[in-house]
């Protein structure tokens, strides 16, 4: 569904992504991992049209992504950013309603249909009871769920998430990722998610892309990519990888002793 070929992105002379090749089918979660500066956020920002690629192709559902207008792109791709810079004055309802932007007419009028979609998105993310509260009064976890609701209201088949768990405690991290997992399984969304916590990657993603210095170092299932060799090399740190008993999922630990 999403196809990235030979993608090169940079700021002026400095290339941040060199010749990246990736594919992401519907109904899958692709975890993007790598040390700081590997180009993970750059990849998200390029796919969402903030940065223009220097060369290479990005196609999604038959559309050539760089040629789309922001409105056309937003109907296909929704982004869940980190919840640290939301305007505090809007209510939760108004914030999620912004997700309908790409579907509104030139006056920005919302219809009963839009409101129904917003209501459903808030229901699916357990935020409906917050609807009338101002965003400034909400906790980090609630704001992050609101951003997921906003992305769902956008009704786009591809979801890009840039470290959505960064400001959340454990309970909310698991909650959020489980919600994403359920959505992908139920509604066949495609999700690309940047995560720093490798154990969350192991538990919640279908495939993993390991980026190092703007190049794709490995791509495969969590078991294939989350190995002691690959990770220790990528992060310049000796790491242990254990295998969990029942599921066989990799479990990453810092070195002992």
């Amino acid at each position, binding site marked *: 569904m999403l196809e990235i070929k030979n993608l090169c992105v940079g700021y002026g002379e400095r290339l941040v992504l060199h010749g990246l090749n990736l594919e992401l089918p519907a109904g899958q979660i692709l975890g993007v991992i790598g040390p700081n500066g590997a180009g993970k956020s750059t990849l998200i*920002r390029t796919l*969402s*049209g*903030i940065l223009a690629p220097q060369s290479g192709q990005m196609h999604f559902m038959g559309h050539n992504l760089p040629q789309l*207008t*922001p*409105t056309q*792109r*937003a*109907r296909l*791709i*929704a*982004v869940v*950013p980190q919840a640290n*810079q*939301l*305007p*505090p*004055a*809007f*209510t939760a*309802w*108004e914030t999620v309603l*912004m*997700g309908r*932007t*790409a*579907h*509104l007419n*030139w*006056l*920005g*009028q919302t219809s009963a249909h839009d409101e129904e979609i917003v209501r459903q998105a808030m229901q699916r993310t357990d935020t409906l009871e917050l*609807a*009338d509260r*101002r*965003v*400034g*009064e909400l906790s980090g976890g609630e704001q992050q769920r609101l951003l997921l609701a*906003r992305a769902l209201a*956008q009704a786009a088949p591809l979801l890009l998430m840039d470290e959505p768990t960064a400001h959340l405690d454990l309970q909310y991290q698991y909650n959020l990722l489980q919600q994403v997992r359920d959505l992908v399984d139920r509604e066949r969304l495609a999700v690309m998610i940047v995560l720093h916590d490798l154990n969350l990657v192991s538990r919640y993603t279908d495939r993993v892309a390991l980026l190092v210095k703007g190049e794709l170092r490995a791509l495969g299932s969590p078991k294939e990519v989350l190995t002691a060799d690959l990770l220790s090399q990528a992060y310049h740190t000796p790491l242990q990888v254990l295998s969990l008993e029942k599921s066989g999922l990799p479990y990453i630990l810092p070195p002992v002793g």
Partner: protein
Amino acid sequence: MKNTARPYMSSFLLLVGALLLSVAVGSVFIPPITLFRLFINGVAPAARPLAEDTATLSTILFSLRLPRTALVAMTGAALAGSGTAYQGLFRNPLADPYLIGVASGAGLGAVLAMSANWPYTSLGMLGVPLAAFLGAVLTVAAVYQLARVRRTIPTTNLILAGVAVSSFATAITSFLMINSTGEMRRALVWLLGGSTMTGWQPVVALLPYITLGLGTLVTMGHALNVLQFGDEQAQQLGLPVQRVRVTIILAASLTTAAAVSFSGVIGFVGLIVPHLVRLVWSSDYRHMLPLSMISGAGLLLIADVLARVVMAPQELPVGIITALAGAPFFLWVLRRAKQQHFW
């Protein structure tokens, strides 16, 4: 979700009251009943000619009070409407028509024209406003160019460039005024927002600019809401950010420049009215824009009435009133707003 009728009712009542006050109060007080009769007579003249004193009142009403009221109302709506747009666009509570140099540019243009004795050339009465308009547009263009980084205009750059260019233009204006001789007082009065033009001519000249500018701004409510999330999120939500920004800047600057051209530099309206609306009613720009325009018209009319009566028969420039009443009020708003989430 919320009941939106009440804010519109309240602001509309404020405007109607201010309009009545503005046509009734002045060097001669016209009682409401007389006003009513004069209006009826104006719309459908009676067969019998008016008594002489009533005829004088009629002249005052239709050639002086009404056009002035219309001009002041339009100016108030223009300043408050563009102030709201600037605040939303720059996501800055201090943004107003002065921030990006529109007003100071217009002031410089006008004073340049006055010191070159333009008003008496072939352009006639419209020479000064035209120069003011050109000054405003050139200033915005300069600020825009200075603030631009490749294809984007970072907000901080825009504000810094605006403040710098603004100071520069104001310095030249001050220099010209200190050096000038005859026209200085007139320029000073104009700069402080004392309207020096009377009759319907400025109203008619202003109408198309204000209609176009404010009409465009009213359609940008949702776009301004989305911009509050920052440029990057706004674009990811599907807003054509660059196009929207340029449209808002052009519409707001056109509106301000037109208002400043005909009414002089009137401070604080564009800053305070949006805050007032946000504080009392809503932070939703779809409602803030029209509500600010209506309330801005009403409040400036009240300030103008005060300017007429405080030192009667001498008139004060309305800019003095708005600053005198506005500054303390603004400080109060600021103190209150600190305790709540408005920005």
